[in-house]
């Protein structure tokens, strides 16, 4: 199946799903590929609203743009989700919540940084009270814009799915136990102020 035109299709399709399930049952497909395929269709973002980009995040799941068609469903608990959308500015207090939420999610997990603020501070680039999200958690996809339109977020989800499928990130992560294709990011600052006595 690998390399065929079917692999280039990243939207839900009942025929493809049925064919893949058949191939798995007949032993034609590796289990790892099924894991990658399943992960791309169950990217559930956790409700972690950091800033005003959250309005666009909400619009992305509204009926007009309907990001649920990509299998992404915003969910409440970090333990049941595998995906964070950082919606804009991350203040110093929120950085702690962001890191804790990220740590609570099960592997494999992915992060999209949304908006100019999440890229490099945006409007608040020289503020005393913000952190750069990429210093706190490892980010997979960046979306520029202030705010990025819902289409951009939908596109980012598709790009993330493409990345997972093409690099087999999810299955390798499960087999090897950690993520090899990028460095581990741990905050250099004491975001939760737990280091001090």
């Amino acid at each position, binding site marked *: 199946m690998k390399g065929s035109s079917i692999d280039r299709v990243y939207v839900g399709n009942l025929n493809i799903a049925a064919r893949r399930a058949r191939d798995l049952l007949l032993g034609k497909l590796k289990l790892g590929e099924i894991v990658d395929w399943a992960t791309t269709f169950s990217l559930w973002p956790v409700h972690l609203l950091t800033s005003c980009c959250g309005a666009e995040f909400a619009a992305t799941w509204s009926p007009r743009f309907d990001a649920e068609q990509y299998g992404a469903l915003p969910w409440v608990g970090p333990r049941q989700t595998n995906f964070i959308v950082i919606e804009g500015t991350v203040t*110093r*207090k929120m950085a702690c919540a962001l890191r804790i939420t990220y740590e609570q999610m099960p592997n494999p997990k992915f992060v999209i940084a949304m908006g100019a603020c999440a890229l*490099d*501070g945006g409007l608040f*680039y*020289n*503020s*005393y*009270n913000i952190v*750069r999200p*990429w210093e706190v958690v490892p*980010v997979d996809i960046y979306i520029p814009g202030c705010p990025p339109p819902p289409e951009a977020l939908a596109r980012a989800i598709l790009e993330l799915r493409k990345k997972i499928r093409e690099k087999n990130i999810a299955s390798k992560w499960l087999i090897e136990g950690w993520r090899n294709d*990028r*460095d581990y990011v741990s905050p250099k600052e004491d975001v939760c*102020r737990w280091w001090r006595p």
Partner: protein
Amino acid sequence: MVEALSLDNIINSIKLNLEGLVKSISISKGYIEVVVDASHIVEAALKLKSMGYDHVKSITAIDYPKESKIRVVYHASSYINEDLAKTIIGLTADIPRDNPVIDSLSQVWRSVEFQEREVYEFFGVIFREHPDLRPLLVIPELAEKKVLRKDFIVKEESIYEGIPHKY
């Protein structure tokens, strides 16, 4: 029928009620600025409350580094009295910049409690007899720097600095 209070009547009654406490009083549109001595601020607030000013909308502080003073402003207004609701009182007191201590009004208006915490974290103004004077929005290390004072220098940096080079 109760006669509607005009702005002049309100100002007259403020002058009457706060006699001996008011340093100066000035008006622009619906905003009445009442400057009192910092040691009399609780007394003045109690009198304003008995007039019908039942809540505080916001608290702020203004830093005057050249005059070496900080001006604390309480914006009080009314929900119950319709005529007073058209005005906002700016209850104002000046305190020295190097020793910014003022009496807390949290016993008078309950809504000032967390707003005083904000003024505390941003300007370092210490409110005496405040029940729980902790920083509200920023972490304590930042609160020590008194970030909204004029002598706090915001780091100017290029927006292109520090982009992660790997990704």
